[in-house]
């Protein structure tokens, strides 16, 4: 581990001079161990305000019934399911970063995995609120589970993708929660051992008695690896099953075999965009530039461009297959998407998801913090439109022209959606205050092998090929957290 040196050609994962293990702990725990800053209070205030509008809107929905939404006889799924799929998709990046990138030994995941996992959990919570709200009678929500009942027992229908979804989403939430919390144990113990009084007591309870002994760590690593192995197919299955909610129906525009991979790519796409939105702000406000470096930002942008392109190919394939199938309903569904009354939604989706992420091919844009942040929000908007297009434009004109209608959201629809973003940010900002937003133990692992200071030392000690050293230092130019002064002489 620490004995081997990473190739000098690889860009550093930790920048800054005089980084020690103690400094990593201190830097990462700044928001946890100190009074919140003004920026946090402002953000939290706005988030809580929107969360409260959500409480009002959802309470009103439960009190009055689903009639307060813009749904009608033809369009029975609209903003609710759009919001649900959007949030579940966002959730995917966390598990992807923590599980898939762990299996592929991508060390850059170490500094972004914790907050991405937290994001996953909060996003899935937001998604779940839509499911409950959409049921109309949320107090009967337990009917989705196969429980013995007074009807004889009439069981749930396991042939239905909606029942698969119940199992997929609840498993996904539960397993992500375990993965996240088990990973947090060593870091909670770090906070515990630095705290005093009541804080120590609370973190002591939460730490489950973690001591950091050899056996603790050995089992911890084993658990992390197996959980990653279990979560990898899980994360792929979840959005596959979400897509089957649509794909197993006979609705034109939904009844396609391309949905599972297309939804999974879209989920990763939107998830990474949300990670980017959150972390670009967090690294600035929390002063984590040395741990979440330009390399991390660029890597995430590369994932966004790959998945965005996959999504683009899927859109074009859909169009082609609709034409090639010769099915007139299918053909009309797509013609209607492109040029029907919801053309603006379709073209917003196309612009935000397919065209604008292509800007990341330019290195200048890919390594610009502002451009990355703006584009990440554009992607999130685009992915919301994708779900809206799939759901509403397919439903509003399907088979019988006599039942064709338009869908118009009510104020409650809008408030439930905007409010859920407030709920998400409230939870995320609280998380940043009480738990470390970066996995400290995992970042410490990288200090001796992948940090800039270790690499500069190798160059200083003339242990590297000078041509390679020059290449390495040239690659540092894009880093906003490294100045040329820190370069070692070759």
């Amino acid at each position: 581990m620490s004995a081997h040196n990473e190739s000098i050609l690889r860009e550093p994962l930790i920048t800054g001079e005089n980084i020690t293990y103690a400094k990593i702990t201190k830097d990462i725990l700044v928001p946890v161990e100190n009074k919140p800053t003004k920026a946090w209070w402002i953000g939290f205030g706005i988030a809580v305000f929107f969360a409260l509008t959500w409480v009002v809107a959802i309470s009103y929905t439960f009190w009055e019934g689903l009639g307060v939404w813009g749904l009608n006889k033809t369009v029975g799924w609209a903003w609710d399911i759009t919001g649900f799929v959007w949030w579940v998709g966002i959730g995917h990046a966390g598990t992807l970063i923590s599980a898939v990138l762990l299996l592929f030994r991508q060390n850059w995941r170490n500094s972004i995995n914790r907050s991405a996992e937290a994001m996953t959990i909060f996003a899935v919570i937001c998604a779940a609120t839509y499911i409950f709200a959409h049921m109309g009678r949320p107090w009967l929500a337990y009917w989705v589970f196969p429980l013995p009942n007074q009807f004889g027992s009439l069981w749930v229908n396991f042939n239905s993708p909606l029942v698969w979804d119940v199992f997929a989403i609840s498993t996904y939430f539960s397993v992500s929660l375990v993965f996240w919390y088990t990973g947090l144990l060593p870091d909670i113990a770090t906070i515990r051992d630095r705290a005093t009084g009541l804080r120590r007591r609370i973190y002591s309870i939460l730490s489950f008695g973690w001591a950091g002994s050899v056996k603790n760590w050995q089992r911890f690593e084993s658990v992390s690896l197996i959980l990653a192995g279990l979560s990898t197919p899980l994360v792929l299955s979840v959005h596959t099953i979400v897509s089957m909610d649509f794909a197993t129906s006979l609705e034109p525009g939904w009844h396609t075999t391309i949905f599972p991979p297309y939804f999974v790519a879209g989920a990763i796409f939107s998830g990474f965009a949300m990670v980017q939105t959150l972390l670009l702000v967090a690294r600035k406000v929390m002063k984590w530039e040395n741990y979440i470096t330009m390399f991390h930002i660029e890597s995430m942008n590369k994932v966004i461009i790959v998945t965005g392109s996959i999504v683009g190919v899927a859109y074009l394939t859909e169009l082609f297959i609709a034409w090639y199938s010769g099915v007139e309903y299918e053909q009309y569904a797509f013609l209607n998407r492109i040029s029907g009354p919801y053309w603006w939604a379709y073209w917003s989706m196309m612009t935000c998801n397919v065209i604008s992420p292509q800007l990341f091919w330019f290195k200048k844009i890919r390594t610009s913090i502002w451009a990355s942040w703006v584009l990440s929000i554009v992607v999130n908007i685009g992915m919301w439109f994708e779900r809206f297009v799939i759901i509403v434009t397919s439903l509003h004109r399907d088979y019988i022209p006599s039942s064709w209608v338009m869908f118009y959201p009510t104020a409650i629809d809008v408030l439930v959606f905007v409010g859920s973003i407030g709920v998400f940010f409230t939870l995320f900002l609280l998380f940043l205050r009480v738990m470390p937003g970066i996995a400290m133990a995992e970042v410490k692992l990288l200090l001796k092998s992948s940090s800039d200071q270790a690499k500069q030392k190798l160059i200083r000690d003339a242990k590297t090929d000078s041509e390679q050293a020059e290449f390495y230092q040239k690659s540092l130019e894009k880093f906003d957290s490294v100045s040329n002064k820190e370069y070692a002489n070759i």
Partner: protein
Amino acid sequence: MSNVKYILGHFEDPDDMMHGIDKLQENNIGIYDVYTPMPIHGIEDKLGYKRSRLPIAAFCFGLTGTITAISMIYYMLVYDWPMNIGGKPSLAMPDFVPITFELTVLFGAYGMMFTFFYANHFFPGRAPRVMDFRATDDRFVIAIDAKSNPYPDKIEDLLKEAGAVEVKHNERKYVSYE
């Protein structure tokens, strides 16, 4: 005889600590445990710890999940209340794959986690057995039982020689109980 129970060697660098373990082992000094702020790869082999059997537990729990899912669905949809859906067979295996998979993952993950907690004696509120508060922060700590290795000066010299920045002679095992 002194009241020292445990001798703790503090290292700032994991490589120095590994060196310290080698030194102690060369001199036949038993190591009680090692506390580190991050996982140290290769340390289990050095200290002779056996491979964790948690993956086996995870497999067994996962298999339990698979069997649970299949038997549950079979009982409910095929045996207890078969439904005629377009004349298709009630035992529609392909339809049962998603839930069987999800329950396999759920049982595997939770079963392994609880086994992990059980094996390490972790539970919410358990009094942490901390020998040194900095072992979760920036120090790599080797703990040596002073009763079974009654030569503190020699141990201190060996640890210092290997690069220990501090050697503590503790009269209490766990500082966290104070």
